[in-house]
């Protein structure tokens, strides 16, 4: 099956700093999403980005599907950005599958 790896596993930033999180996947995919898991455990969908670049405020994401990686950029980080960031791809073949395969996550701590 598809393998999804994220780096770095942990990251500590001072408020205001920028960061880049990386997601590598082992096979071609037609669906890639970035999630933020808040301290209460809820997964919030940040981006649906199978290819190209998208921006939403201080966050942006780029996926290069041909090279099997995606990047999540966080600029001017805030303490509320703390949490775990996951990338996830749709598992299996064809249109019949509706499960996500998650990476191992990046734990981000933003210090004031």
């Amino acid at each position: 099956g598809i393998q999804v790896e994220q780096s770095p596993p942990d990251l500590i930033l001072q408020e205001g700093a920028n960061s880049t999180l990386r997601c590598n996947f082992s096979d071609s995919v037609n669906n890639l999403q970035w999630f933020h898991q808040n301290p209460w455990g809820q997964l919030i969908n940040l981006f649906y980005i199978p290819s190209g670049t998208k921006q939403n405020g201080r966050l942006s994401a780029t996926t290069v599907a041909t090279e099997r990686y995606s990047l999540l950029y966080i600029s001017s980080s805030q303490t509320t950005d703390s949490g775990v960031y996951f990338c996830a791809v749709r598992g299996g073949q064809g249109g019949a599958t509706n499960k996500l395969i998650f990476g191992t996550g990046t734990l981000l701590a933003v210090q004031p």
Partner: protein
Amino acid sequence: DAGVTQSPTHLIKTRGQQVTLRCSPKSGHDTVSWYQQALGQGPQFIFQYYEEEERQRGNFPDRFSGHQFPNYSSELNVNALLLGDSALYLCASSLLGQGVRGYTFGSGTRLTVV
């Protein structure tokens, strides 16, 4: 508009017992998926329910079973609990036609098996 609601939020059970977790999907959604997230890991797909039937299943033993009701709410049942079943159990609802792109997750149930 209420999002996905899961209950209970926390639960402690003893090895060998059985547990039932509940999920109410977001209004308008017809599909419910369940994920298990062990500490320090990413969520893993357990199964998905649509039209009251299990539509797809991940690599979980038969001790894990589920149900979907006519109002689209769902239950996850785990029998003969093991210590390794301790995890955060997440429910995600969606519209079948939107696939995984339309997922909305709940905040989960934290299960501790002692």
